[in-house]
Every structure is written in C-alpha cells, then in structure tokens.
C-alpha cells in the first residue's frame, strides 16, 4: 500500500481537542430511532426488533431485521458511489436514471425464451438474445454504468461545467434512453440464473455452505461493497485523493494529484455502482421498467447526508452513509410496524432529513468554535 504524507505544517496531536468521530452521533441517532419504535410497538403489545410470536423460537424478529437491510440495499449501493462523489466535492443526480437505463438494457439480454410453455410475451430481441449465459447481461449492465459514469466524469473534469449540471443532463438523457429502449414497454421474464442473482443464496456460495442467507443477495452485496469501499477510502491513495480534492481542489492539484483523471475515475465507479444496483433490482423484481429508479438519486444523497457526508466536500465516510441508510430503513419499517397512515410517512421522512443536517451543521459550528 502506498504511503501518503501526513502531519503537515507542524500541527501536533492535542488530546483535549479530540472529538468523537461523526459516525458515533449518527449511530446514536439510529439507536434512538430504533428505540422509539420499539417502545411504540411495546405499547401496542408487539415488538419492533424482538420476536413475540409463540410459534417461533428466536430472540429477534428475523424477518424484520432482514427487510431492514434488504429494503435499502439497492439504494444503499448507489449511495456508496454517491458518497465518494460528494466527498470529492461533486454531486451525482444521474444515478436513478442510470439505474432505469441500465435495467432496461441489461434485462433485454437476460430474457428466457419460454414462459409457462408459451413464447416470452415481452421478448425484445430475436432468438439469438434468449437464454444467454448470465455473464452477458451483467457485463452489458456494468458497461452501461461505466459509460454513463465516464461521460459524467469527463464532462465535470474537462469541460469544467458544474457537476450539478453535467449529471442533471445525464439524468434527463439516461431516462430518455430507458423509455426509448423498448418504447416504454416493461421487459420481463428473465432466465433462472439471472433471477438467482438477487434471489439466490450468495452468502451460502461464498462461504461454501457454512452460512446461509437465501433471497438476501442485494443485502449481502451491499455489505460486501461497503466493507470494500470503506477500506479503499481509508487506506488507499485513491481514498486520500478523494478527500484531498474535496477539501481543496487547488491545493490537491498543486501537490501533484491528477485531479481530472481522478474525477473521471470516481464518477465512473459511481456509474458502475448504479449499474450493480440496476442488475440486482431487475433480478429481484424479475422485470425492468422504464420508470425504475426514479428519485433513487435523492434517496441516495439523503442517506449520505444523514450519515454526515458534507455537501461541501472533503468530509464524510462510507460507514456514515451505511448508518444513514439504516436510519432511512428503520424509519420505513417502523412506520409500517406502528401502522402510521401513509400520508404522514413522507412528511416525517422529509423532516428527518432536514433535521439531521441541521443537527450536523450545529455540531460543526460548535466544534469550529472550540478549536
């Protein structure tokens, strides 16, 4: 692993100025919110996290814990890419649309020829594209994400237009591609191997049957990618460069970082992560639709922001985003568990997003005043 320069300008370690890592606060918020739902459920005679069914022998309510991870896994994977882009000082509005376009294109190479004994009613291409090996749609999907991300990065790095505009353009265009690809028709009925990407038991195959978590592959992929990208962001030059460029782009350039190249790289990776999300989403739902992924970019950004990633760049972490995603999910599951009327859910969700950032800003100011 390459070594980077630490300890600049004679700043020495001062134990009194040490503060909690930001993630601890976010984690506390997660625990607090979970606790609130646990109490509300208890008042109703149930439980949020613990098993209350007499016919099941378990401490925890396993289904609840599974869904909490599973229902944010796909937007969470996008958020992992968005986190890197935001730390870099950019923004990616295109990820939801890239999911839509990738879903349509990848799925059309994953179809099966015969459904219930009839020819596939949703066939996009002829027989040559039917029952292809699963690697084909995966490669095509990842390729789509890579192209979209590369274009984003290229526009941001070399035309110097603001990332907001560059990725806004991609957001509109990629959605156009998603609708044009099959004239808005859904693409359904994938091969079994493609369906098993999300619905199989990846953890089982990875651990040679030691562990098993069937049907939860998006969650497994999310966790694996989060661990991997956390290590990358903390321990590699790649990660250090993201933080350096996000904190002070000019300083980063003058210290010899190829800023443009690094931006292209980060946006490309974000595009690929959106593609991974699209593949898992279509595999999980056994269908691709042009409207898939609408608003996912905003959910992903919200997860990062709740997790303490600063939109100003240079600050935040993968761990924070993962906790942010879990907060998101606990809120969704919690509302359903207490049977809160659907109308109120969105109102409260919006308030929590804004509240998280207000709290974070206040904490930042206080920290700045102290040092």
């Amino acid at each position, binding site marked *: 692993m390459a070594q980077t320069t630490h300890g600049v300008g004679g700043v020495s370690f001062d134990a009194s100025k040490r503060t909690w890592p930001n993630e601890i606060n976010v984690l506390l918020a997660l625990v607090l919110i979970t606790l609130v739902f646990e109490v509300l459920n208890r008042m109703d005679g*149930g439980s949020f996290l613990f098993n*209350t*069914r007499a016919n*099941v022998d378990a401490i925890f*309510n396993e*289904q*609840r814990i*599974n*869904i909490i991870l*599973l*229902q944010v896994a*796909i937007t969470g994977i996008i958020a992992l890419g968005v986190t890197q882009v935001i730390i870099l000082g950019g923004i990616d509005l295109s990820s939801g649309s890239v999911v*839509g376009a990738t879903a349509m294109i990848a799925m059309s190479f994953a179809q099966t020829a015969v*459904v*219930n004994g*009839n020819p596939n*009613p*949703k066939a996009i291409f002829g027989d040559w594209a039917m029952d292809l090996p699963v690697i084909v749609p995966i490669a095509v999907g990842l390729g789509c994400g890579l192209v979209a991300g590369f274009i984003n990065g290229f526009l941001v790095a070399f035309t110097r237009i603001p990332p907001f505009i560059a990725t806004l353009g991609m957001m509109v265009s990629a*959605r156009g591609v*998603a*609708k044009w690809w099959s*004239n*808005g*028709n*859904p693409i*359904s*009925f994938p091969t079994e191997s493609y369906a098993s990407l999300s*619905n199989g038991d990846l953890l089982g195959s990875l651990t040679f049957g030691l562990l098993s978590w069937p*049907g939860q592959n998006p969650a497994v992929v999310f966790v694996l990618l989060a661990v991997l990208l956390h290590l990358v962001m903390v321990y590699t030059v790649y990660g250090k460069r993201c933080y350096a460029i996000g904190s002070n782009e000019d300083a980063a350039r003058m210290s010899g970082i190829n800023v443009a190249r690094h931006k292209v790289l980060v946006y490309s990776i974000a595009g690929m992560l959106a593609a991974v999300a699209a593949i898992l*989403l279509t595999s*999980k*739902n*056994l*269908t691709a*639709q*042009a*409207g*898939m992924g609408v608003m996912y970019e905003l959910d992903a950004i919200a997860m990062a922001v709740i997790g303490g990633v600063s939109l100003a760049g240079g600050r935040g972490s993968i761990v924070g985003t993962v906790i942010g995603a879990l907060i998101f999910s606990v809120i*969704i*599951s919690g509302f*359903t*568990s207490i*049977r809160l009327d*659907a*109308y109120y859910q969105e109102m409260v969700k919006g308030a929590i997003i804004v509240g998280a950032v207000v709290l974070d800003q206040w904490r930042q100011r206080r920290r700045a005043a102290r040092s």
Partner: protein
Amino acid sequence: MKKTLIVAGVASLLATTAMAQNIGVTMALFDDNFLTVLRNGMVAQAESRGINLQVEDAQNDVAKQLAQINNFIASGVDAIIVNPVDTSATQAMTDAAAAAGVPLVYVNRQPINLDTLPDNQAFVGSNEIESGTLAAFEGCKLLRAAGKSNGAGIYILMGELSNQAAVQRTKDFDDIIGIDMCNFISVIDRQTANWSRDQAQNLMTNWLSSGAEFDAVFANNDEMAIGAIQAMKAAGISMEDVVVTGVDATQDALVAMQAGDLDVTVFQDAAGQGSGALDAAVRLAAGESVQTTIYIPFQLVTPANVADFLARN
C-alpha cells in the same frame, strides 16, 4: 409558370383536405406500462388509417401539458387527444381548444368538467368504479368459497395517494367490504406502494414481519400484487392459502395467474381506449357528433378465462 403555381397550390389544398388528419396527442407520461399500451394502440391504429399522429410526453407536468395543447393549436392540428396529467386541471385545456375551435378528446382519465364539455369534445375511457368493484367482489367470493366467511383479514396495497384511480379503487374496495355479503372481511392495514412492484415487495415483507394472520391482499394494480406475491413466496407462504387480487391484466400478471399465484385481475382495454379515442377524434374533426362519454368496459379475469386475454394487452 403562374399556372403551374396555381395548379400546385390547388393540388396541395386538395391533398390536405383529402388527408385532413393531423392529430396531436399529449400523454400524461410515457414510462407507464398501461399508458404505453394505450399509446401504442393509438399509434398502430393511426398508421393503418394513414393519420398523422404527433405524440408528446407531458412528463406528469400539468403546465407542460397545457403548453403542448397550445402548441398543437398553434400548429393547426385537426384534433387533439389528451391523456390528462391531472383530471382536475382539464377546464383550462377545454377552454383553450374550444376558443380555437379544435376538437378535443380526453382519454383514459375522466376530466372534472365532463358534464359541461362542449359539443366538439368527448371522453373515452373506462368507468373507473367498475375495476375496483369487480376485483374486490371476486376476492370476497373467493374468501367465502374458501370457508372464511366467519372472519378474514386483508391488506390493501394502494397506488399513489395523489392519483384518482388509486383513491377510487381503494374506495371501491371499502364499499365492497361494507356490503352484507362481504362484511366478514376486516382490513388489517392499508399502505401505499406507489404502483411499484419493488415498493410493494418491501412493504409486504414488512407486514409479514409483524406476524399478523391474514387471508388476502387486495392491490390497486397488478404490479403491486406481483410484488406482494414475490414477498410472500420468499417467506415460504403457499399461494394456495392467500387470495391476491390486482387490476390491469398486464402480461406479467397473466403469467402469474397461469402459475397459480394471482387469483383475480381486471382487464382494462388500453388499446381499445387508444383506438376509441382516435376514432372519436377523427369523427369530431370531420364534423360528426359523438357521444360525450364513450365507455370501454372492464372485464374480470380469473384462471378460468385467463387464456382469452394473453394476447390482448
């Protein structure tokens, strides 16, 4: 030289009156499965009749849709077909077309000013009350047939809360549950999954994790019904024991029905509405009069007649 110009001019005049048919269409949004079938039905019909169709996507934006209508009027189309984004915002559209004397046909979504439409305007669609009623009543009958008439719990999956069809279908479900024959049904919970399969899948899993006993899932559309089915199958629930109803009769739903997973859906003739709207627009443009409201009926789809619908949507 002059003569040839005049001849050419007359010829082109004749040609335009002979074809006469430039029709502008503004759809609420393109990336909706049902509206896509409707749109494609309209386009196919127009092609076979040699009609010039210009189809625009209003992207769920009321203002954009009104602008598109005004643009159609400005470019002198013979008739306009509108699939309204917001059914309560149709008065302005009616006024704009009426002021310019251009015939206008609303399709699929019932305009709020239906009772006061001028003579050269019409509505082609289905009577929305039928769909939810048909589905819920059949679901109620299935529950009775399964011997659950002494009490049954159901979940209701609702579409987008701002959408008229979602509100109406949910109300129809409630009305059916209110009648004597079906009042053994009680609703455990109702939530929105925004018409989406993925959201319905997550929501159903959340419901399952609460462990409450239930007998049926009534969904506002097929996509959500399929999402619920996928969640229940993942949790190891036998689809024999649960009644699942949807609306729309999409291809995916019909396949789910053939596989024995979905019990009830309702066919709304999207292509029929599209070609019906086009037909009404052509006739209004030719100066004929048509009925103000043209209903294309809903049809109940069950495993018994599912084969008839496989090639329809």
